[in-house]
């Protein structure tokens, strides 16, 4: 009798716990789904070919976010071209040779930089680049994005490289491979999918940044392919539309948001794809 009692009680508690955790999981998903469907519902109707390719026009005359998409793409590309090599290089250094005071200092500074609000990076670039140049520019925007990117990439790269077992390095060293070759063609490939994940996540992160671009790249009403000129970006364009007085502007803000979320989603799917190990 006693046995059956404790047994059913245990079953009850176990069932209740499962229910509670499941409820938490559902709550978390529901919030995400709500946000996504809300954005989609608000934005979907505004999206058409003209909206995706046109430049902004005065209220009531249509217009679109073509130049903003282009600007975001260009600045993210330049930021990645600068930030990725530096970040990965720094991460490799930290993992393979960084067990000294210099390495610890770099690590500490990188962690601090990751925690700094991005607007401060914007102000920094504003003082360093925008003021001497006399105007905002795509270059200044890309540089501030690169600065946000570098410490994230460096630290994830370091973590990923540390996960490569020491025995694998020794195996290559034992064959007479010099240290740099061990790092380059054993350690790096072994950590590649992890490094790629970190890189993609940092790209997703900077493509959603607004604050540092407000000071540095400003905005532009035109398609602009020159990095010495102010450049439009999706995020700043969303900010402008969203803070405008007219309902039609708000609608365009929702549509642009949907595009941005879609792009970040694509990047995340790409991450999933990249992390599928080949070997």
């Amino acid at each position, binding site marked *: 009798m006693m046995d059956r009692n404790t047994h059913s009680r245990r079953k009850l508690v176990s069932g209740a716990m499962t229910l509670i955790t499941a409820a938490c999981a559902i709550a978390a998903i529901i919030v995400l789904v709500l946000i996504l469907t809300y954005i989609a519902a608000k934005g979907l109707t505004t999206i058409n070919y003209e909206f995706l390719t046109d430049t902004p026009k005065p209220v009531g005359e249509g217009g679109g976010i073509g130049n903003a998409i282009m600007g975001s793409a260009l600045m993210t590309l330049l930021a990645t071209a600068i930030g990725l090599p530096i970040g990965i290089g720094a991460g490799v250094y930290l993992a393979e040779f960084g*067990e000294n005071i210099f390495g610890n200092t770099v690590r500490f500074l990188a962690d601090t930089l990751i925690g700094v609000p991005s607007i401060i990076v914007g102000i920094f670039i504003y003082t360093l680049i925008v003021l001497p140049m006399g105007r905002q520019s795509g270059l200044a925007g890309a540089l501030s994005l690169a600065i946000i990117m570098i410490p994230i990439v460096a630290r994830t790269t370091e973590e990923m490289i540390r996960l490569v*077992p*020491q*025995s*694998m*390095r*020794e*195996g*290559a*060293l*034992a*064959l*007479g*491979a*010099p240290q740099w*070759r061990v790092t380059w*063609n*054993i350690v790096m*490939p*072994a950590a590649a999918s992890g490094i790629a994940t970190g890189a993609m996540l940092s790209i997703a992160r900077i493509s959603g940044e607004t604050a540092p671009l407000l000071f540095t790249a400003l905005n532009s009403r035109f398609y602009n392919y020159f990095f010495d000129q102010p450049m439009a970006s999706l995020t700043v364009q969303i900010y402008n539309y969203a803070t405008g007085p007219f309902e039609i502007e708000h609608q365009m803000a929702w549509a642009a948001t949907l595009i941005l979320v879609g792009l970040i989603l694509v990047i995340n799917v790409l991450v999933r794809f990249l992390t599928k190990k*080949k*070997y």
Partner: protein
Amino acid sequence: MGDKISIKNLNFYYGKNQALYDISMKIPEREVMAFVGPSGCGKSTFLRVFNRMNDTIPYARVEGEVKIDGKNIYKTKTDVVALRRKVGMVFQKSNPFPKSIFENVAYGIRINKMHSGKKDLADRVEKALRDAALWDEVSDRLNTSAFGLSGGQQQRLCIARALAVQPEVILMDEPASALDPIATQKIEELVVELKKKYTIVIVTHNMQQAARISDKTAFFMLGKLIEVNPTEKMFTNPDDELTEDYITGRFG
């Protein structure tokens, strides 16, 4: 025959812990030297002294003299990369690279630029895999991941990888620990074959194996070299009582 390696008053420390105590011995050229002794007695540590693999452990420290071909390898101007090229190693735990089976074996050949063209590279890889008694099992899937192999196959892959660069000395740390009797026998035959050209130092926990394949055997305990003698003498009439106790299985 001359001595390939000679060790004099070697002490080894992991930080404050001493792992090897005042070891002196000689390893003759083109012979098989077996290291035996209870777990944790320092066999792997000693083996890793010969290709300076312990350099990768920042807190490790070596005292004394280790000469290979008459040159002290712990002199500051030693070219460690060239040393490791000459003194190959098969590790206690198999450690294939995250590459294909072919590329695992080809790696050492490539970095040392030993091949003349693609065909030669493929031939060398095949030869190494045949010598390691693995070819028949992998010849039809050379381009698949090395991690797809079984534990014993991975161990033989690591042997093939070490053979491919044709070192002068081969250090083997329990190369047959994960092998079935047939593969073990093949590896033993290989070792006997290899000693025509190479000097071999092999760590083993299998006394019969040591007796079958080695010319000399060294017995270690708690970081000390207790006895080193021709294998036959070691297994029939050892000098030290501890050796006899260990070999006959009275302890350890």
